[in-house]
């Protein structure tokens, strides 16, 4: 992502936010959907804890609630809709329009994806606070350092997620079955990110697999940092891994895009 000349991408993000705000009703419906989801997760985990104050997998019920809300927050930022929009643009030949404008394709798509993040963030926080209140409070970061590192980690998580979404959306160059790929991405990410079940509950072999995948960086890492479950050096190492995955996936996306465009512009689709 180039910083110089970033003004145009800021405008692009703003326009994208404006589009979302135009469709208030559809946005509201999505929020309602996620509210049901988060409430269901809370009831499920409350049943698992069974009113015990004892820790499960290293989490107390108070911490688990914090974990679930961070997971909810991270899942609210960037969605299948971003894959859908990038893919639709590719299928409908928007790439050609983009090539005749002084814009970088990936940076433009990034701007359009993060444009609506402020509204996604605001509604997710509202829902999270309401749910936290209804379920008798949640764990907060143990000190401001963890809170600050959590913010950095959450930002990196969003970059990783964009990297994944962009790579998956590139599938639109080769297949019209992007929906299947997106569903697959969400399912795999749901498991390996720790969004459904914290990775601590996994058997060793499954945890070993998730350790070498980028998904844990999208939920597990920021959630563990939020709860102060890791100390200084381990925390920095986790953030460094996140940063590496973010850069790696974004570069990979660029390479796939370049290859696809070369195929299209040289062989003609």
């Amino acid at each position: 992502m180039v910083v110089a000349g970033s003004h145009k991408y800021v405008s692009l993000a703003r326009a994208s936010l404006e589009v979302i705000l135009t469709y208030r009703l559809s946005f509201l419906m999505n929020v309602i959907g996620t509210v049901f989801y988060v409430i269901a997760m809370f009831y499920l985990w409350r049943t698992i804890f069974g009113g015990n104050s004892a820790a499960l997998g290293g989490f107390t019920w108070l911490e688990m609630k914090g974990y679930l809300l961070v997971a909810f927050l991270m899942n609210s930022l960037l969605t299948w809709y971003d894959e859908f929009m990038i893919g639709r643009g590719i299928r409908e030949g928007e790439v050609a329009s983009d090539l005749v404008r002084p814009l970088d394709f990936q940076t433009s798509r990034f701007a359009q994806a993060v444009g609506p993040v402020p509204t996604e963030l605001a509604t997710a926080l509202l829902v999270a606070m309401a749910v936290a209140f209804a379920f008798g409070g949640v764990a907060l970061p143990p000190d401001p350092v963890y809170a600050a590192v959590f913010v950095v980690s959450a930002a990196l998580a969003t970059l990783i997620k964009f990297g994944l979404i962009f790579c998956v959306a590139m599938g639109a160059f080769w297949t019209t079955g992007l929906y299947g790929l997106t569903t697959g991405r969400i399912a795999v990410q749901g498991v390996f990110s720790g969004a459904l079940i914290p990775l601590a509950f996994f058997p060793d072999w499954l945890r070993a697999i998730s350790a070498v995948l980028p998904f844990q960086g999208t939920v597990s890492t920021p959630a563990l940092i939020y709860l102060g479950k890791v100390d200084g050096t381990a925390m920095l190492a986790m953030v460094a891994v996140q940063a590496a995955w973010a850069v790696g996936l974004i570069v990979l996306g660029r390479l796939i895009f370049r290859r696809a465009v070369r195929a299209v512009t040289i062989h003609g689709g």
Partner: protein
Amino acid sequence: MPLIQAEGLTKTFRQADKDAGLKGSVKHLFIRRYKNKVAVDNIDLSIEAGESIAYLGPNGAGKSTTIKMLTGILVPTAGRLHVDGLVPHEHRQRNARNIGVVFGQRTQLWWDIPVIESFNLARDMYEIPEATYRANLAEFTEMLGLDEFVKLPAARISLGQRMRADLCMALLHNPKILYLDEPTIGLDIAVKDRIRTFVRRLVDERGTTVMLTTHDLGDIEDICERIVIIDQGRIIHDGDLGKLKDTFARDRVIHFQIARGAELLPALLPSVRAALPDSTVEAGDDGSLSVRFDRFVFAAGEIAAAVMSRAEVEDFRIDEPAVEDLIKRVYLGQLTLADRPGSKAAPAPEPAAEAAAR
């Protein structure tokens, strides 16, 4: 140096070569065979700044492929191409600042937000200085009558309004070259006129170079000085409208209404025919006489004199070949370079056409 310079520009596409039916499809899954299709075949094109060019050809002739190479969307297979000194596909973003592109069938406007917001986005995208932006926006708004709908989202304006807004958006950054791909497709006469007048003024007042593809002859006659026709990937004509007529339609027909024609014509015919060799002289049932002649062999006056000296002419009219017919015949492949009428007597050899013929 010309603004657009193409030499031997060629584009070959790879197409899946697959047998018909399910069997063919299955076979293709395992054994991939491809064949090459030449979309643009070794064309030379030289366009100076300020020219307005109609780029014509039947569907599939290679028009869009050429435009896509000029705009940098497609990479040429062979040949050299420079647009304002840049190789478009290598310097895509720099080239993008020099050009404006309007595709009649696709909008650059954002669908869901007010048109004016799309314009503002273009300002930021092309980093247009505020003063330039304001001046251009004011001018285009006035010329194209945009103020009635700029506050509406693109999804809620008519096709004609959308086209005008798209034109404005493509021009806000003062591009040197404007590519228009079927800009008036599906529009009503009034909007067509407005758009043609606007583009013509752009050429006259701002010196913008315009290259347009169209199937609408009104676009050509109102906007363009030069016509380039491409067929099967090759340029078969490059010149102005007059030259097109000289090249492909040298025949004129003069119809004479002769006094007491029905009675006199049988005797008259042989003598007129003798006076006008190489022309076709025919008598009509209603006592009319028509003479089809090559206007490089005879002047219309000579024909008129030859007839009038032999009979009393009550009325006459000259049929010029309609450009529309002409282009239709070119499209249908009824006129090709090889059988250009009387090419030996062609007034001046035409470099581009010669090049395309080799």
